[in-house]
């Protein structure tokens, strides 16, 4: 039997557990965060419901709209949600409400009711409310709102079936009974307008009552639409009179403010009528934790300590599985060579593909730990506290406390970080944040840092060096922000008003979804883009062939008897071959540009290949430095090679360059999309490259003087 399709728009304020609810209903993979605006893109999931009576099957598509406090066009998310609700096709709204913050949540509910769409209210976190001693009379609330109200909990799964059932029931109804009752003086004016429409038999697809309300609210779209209709002439004086009455009554002339007051009165009234609070307990826990975590003096040290701990954990705990993965790939490469012999095919598989992708995959443990840490900070509600702590500091640099979220996300990957910057309302704040995000060292750069820090400082110091690199990148970002704020993007500050969500124990399932999703993204990148890049690098470093050179060296090798001499000559041959390859040619052509930084052509090539993605820097170096002696590949061997061929000042300069230049092609594409300007992308590319070059130059020369 054909399933009937129902499209549901899921709307709610941030932190009401909307995405958790979707996860519980459809078991879908969705990113959920305990922070305003983690879900920016619109995502969809499907679920089915079988009506027990007619046994008709329904396919319910749930559209997860970004969390929004109101329909005011305040931030990007709010605009996205409002646009969707007003202009897209859907059958009904499910408004998710946090039972523990009923009054504030009902403000949005009131606005939604005014849309005149069919609606169901889901009273989420009902279990938490019960624990806090809050009891809500859902039935009574349903009567007040004129729509079904279903108590649910994403955590305990209670009420989920009932919610689906209500959705189907409301869907089957011809129209909505939703209502929001205003003060008498507004109701009178609404009645008068409705009566006028009735007398005129005015054709309208939305109910007269909603039409009247939207006219009184000075809804631009309705005005635009009705403006050209004949009825307008008669309507206009009525409307003017109605508004005059309202102004007279309230003593205010701002119709938005008047209706906001109405919504508030409605929300407060509804809450008073349905809620009975016994005591507050859970709130005190949040309070106690907050006393410590956002303490005036202890807050920031605690935060820095947690971050430091996370980085240490990332690199000490990640080391072991990293070695295993590396060993596994080495074994595979050796097997390939054994199986296929010294052929071109063996070379492309073992040295090109396995070498490149293996290097990337071996960093997966580090990345999982880091993503896990960030997800933990996000879902517990700690991130919001950090914004609070850091706003004073950030504000001095022309940033917003909220910039913290994209900036921290930037330590994971710059691509989602660019998208996370959409939470910033003011264009100025957003642009500045977007421009400096690249300075936050993304996880793809970790391999490069680990490689160089390990080679030149020893593995035991690598964690500390990494921490320093991250701090340095962040400081660069802040300075760049200040410069941009003073010279480029001048303008009004965005007000800082944000909710501090309650502390929550994160559900493991949620964290698993987030970490698994992000790790899969990383692997997918490794599997496709980086695979392609490493084959390209392999090709460019193996061709064109030079049989003459090879013959000459082989003759020499045949002449020498000592095995040591033989190996030396073998190495010389590899180097000569590389130098005349396409890759060598490109590196040599651009080498003058990098020469003042102390980079040889191999490092230059690695940096250029790194424009594709930072992981490619490592795989390129791998190919460049260890081709030919396949037996001793892997991170350790590469580090040995680097130590032998690269000077200490040049290595530091290389780290600085990698830290500061653009992250990758993907990031550049997203940057263009988020700023909407090719020109800005050009500025970003030229600006960061210039900064990277200048500071590498400085590092190289200063360190050379000191060492």
């Amino acid at each position, binding site marked *: 039997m054909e399933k009937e399709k129902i499209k549901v728009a899921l709307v709610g304020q941030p932190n009401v557990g909307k995405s958790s609810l979707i996860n519980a209903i459809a078991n879908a993979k969705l990113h959920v965060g305990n922070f305003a605006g983690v879900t920016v893109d619109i995502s969809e999931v499907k679920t089915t419901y079988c009506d027990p009576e007619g046994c008709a099957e329904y396919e319910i598509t749930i559209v997860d709209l970004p969390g929004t*406090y109101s329909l005011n066009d305040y931030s990007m998310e709010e605009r996205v949600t409002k646009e969707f609700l007003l202009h897209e096709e859907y059958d009904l709204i499910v408004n998710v409400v946090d039972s523990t913050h009923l009054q504030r949540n009902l403000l949005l509910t009131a606005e939604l009711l005014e849309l005149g769409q069919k609606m169901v209210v889901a009273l989420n976190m009902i279990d938490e409310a019960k624990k806090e001693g809050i009891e809500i009379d859902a039935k009574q609330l349903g009567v007040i709102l004129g729509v079904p109200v279903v108590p649910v909990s994403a955590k305990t799964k209670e009420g989920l079936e009932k919610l689906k059932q209500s959705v189907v029931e409301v869907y089957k109804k011809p129209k909505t009974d939703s209502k929001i009752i205003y003060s008498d003086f507004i109701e009178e004016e609404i009645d008068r307008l409705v009566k006028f429409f009735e007398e005129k038999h005015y054709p309208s697809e939305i109910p007269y009552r909603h039409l009247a309300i939207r006219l009184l609210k000075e809804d631009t779209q309705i005005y635009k639409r009705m403006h050209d209709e004949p009825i307008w002439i008669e309507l206009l004086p009525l409307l003017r009179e109605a508004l005059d009455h309202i102004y007279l009554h309230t003593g205010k002339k701002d119709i938005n403010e008047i209706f906001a007051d109405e919504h508030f009165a409605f929300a407060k009234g509804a809450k008073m009528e349905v809620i009975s609070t016994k005591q507050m307990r859970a709130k005190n826990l949040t309070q106690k934790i907050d006393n410590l975590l956002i303490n*005036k003096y202890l807050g920031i040290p605690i935060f820095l300590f947690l971050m430091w701990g996370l980085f240490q954990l990332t690199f000490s705990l990640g080391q072991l599985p990293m070695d295993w993965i590396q060993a596994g790939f080495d074994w595979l490469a050796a097997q390939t060579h054994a199986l296929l012999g010294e052929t071109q095919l063996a070379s492309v598989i073992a040295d090109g593909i396995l070498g490149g992708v293996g290097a990337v995959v071996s960093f997966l443990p580090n990345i999982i730990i880091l993503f896990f840490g960030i997800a933990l900070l996000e879902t517990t509600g700690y991130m919001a506290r950090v914004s609070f702590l850091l706003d004073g500091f950030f*504000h001095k640099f022309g940033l917003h406390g909220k910039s913290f979220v994209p900036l921290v996300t930037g330590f994971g990957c710059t691509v989602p970080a660019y998208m996370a910057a959409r939470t910033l309302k003011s264009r100025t704040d957003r642009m500045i944040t977007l421009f400096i995000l690249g300075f936050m060292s993304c996880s793809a750069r970790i391999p490069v840092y680990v490689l160089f820090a390990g080679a030149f400082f020893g593995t035991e110091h690598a964690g500390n060096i990494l921490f320093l690199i991250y701090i340095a990148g962040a400081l660069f970002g802040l300075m760049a922000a200040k410069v941009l704020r003073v010279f480029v993007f001048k303008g009004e500050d965005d007000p800082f*008003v944000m909710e*501090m969500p309650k502390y929550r124990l994160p559900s493991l399932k949620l964290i698993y979804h987030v970490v698994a999703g992000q790790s899969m993204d990383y692997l997918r990148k490794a599997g496709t883009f980086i695979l392609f890049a490493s084959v390209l690098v392999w090709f460019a470093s193996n061709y064109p062939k030079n049989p003459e050179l090879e013959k000459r060296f082989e003759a020499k090798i045949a002449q020498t008897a000592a095995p040591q001499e033989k190996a030396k000559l073998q190495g010389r041959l590899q180097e000569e071959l590389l130098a005349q390859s396409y890759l060598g040619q490109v590196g040599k052509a651009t080498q003058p540009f990098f020469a003042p930084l102390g980079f040889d052509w191999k490092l230059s090539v690695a940096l250029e290949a790194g424009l594709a993605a930072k992981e490619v820097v490592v795989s390129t170096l791998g190919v460049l430095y260890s081709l030919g002696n396949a037996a001793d590949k892997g991170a350790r061997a590469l580090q040995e090679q680097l130590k032998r061929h690269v000077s200490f000042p040049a290595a530091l300069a290389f780290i600085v360059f990698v830290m500061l230049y653009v992250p990758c092609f993907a990031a550049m594409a997203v940057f263009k999309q988020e700023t909407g300007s090719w020109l800005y992308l050009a500025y970003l590319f030229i600006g960061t490259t210039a900064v990277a070059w200048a500071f590498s130059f400085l590092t190289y020369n200063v360190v050379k003087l000191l060492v």
Partner: protein
Amino acid sequence: MRLTELRKGDRGTILRIQADPELRNRLHSFGIIPGEELEVKGCSLARQTMEIDVDGTLIALRKEEAEKIEVEKSVSAPAR
């Protein structure tokens, strides 16, 4: 008096919000509305940002925004 003049632990009632409509709407949607009670829960270093509790919701504000909220300080802290 202004919200910024309250100290940690002080309670007060919101009297007036003197902000442009955009910010006022924003505050409104958080439940920061004249007539409501609030309690100052904490301040960050140098009082750059403050945390207030309005009807059970914790809200963080910057000094510039808090200055626009006029409050009346409650003399004795009533038990809720």
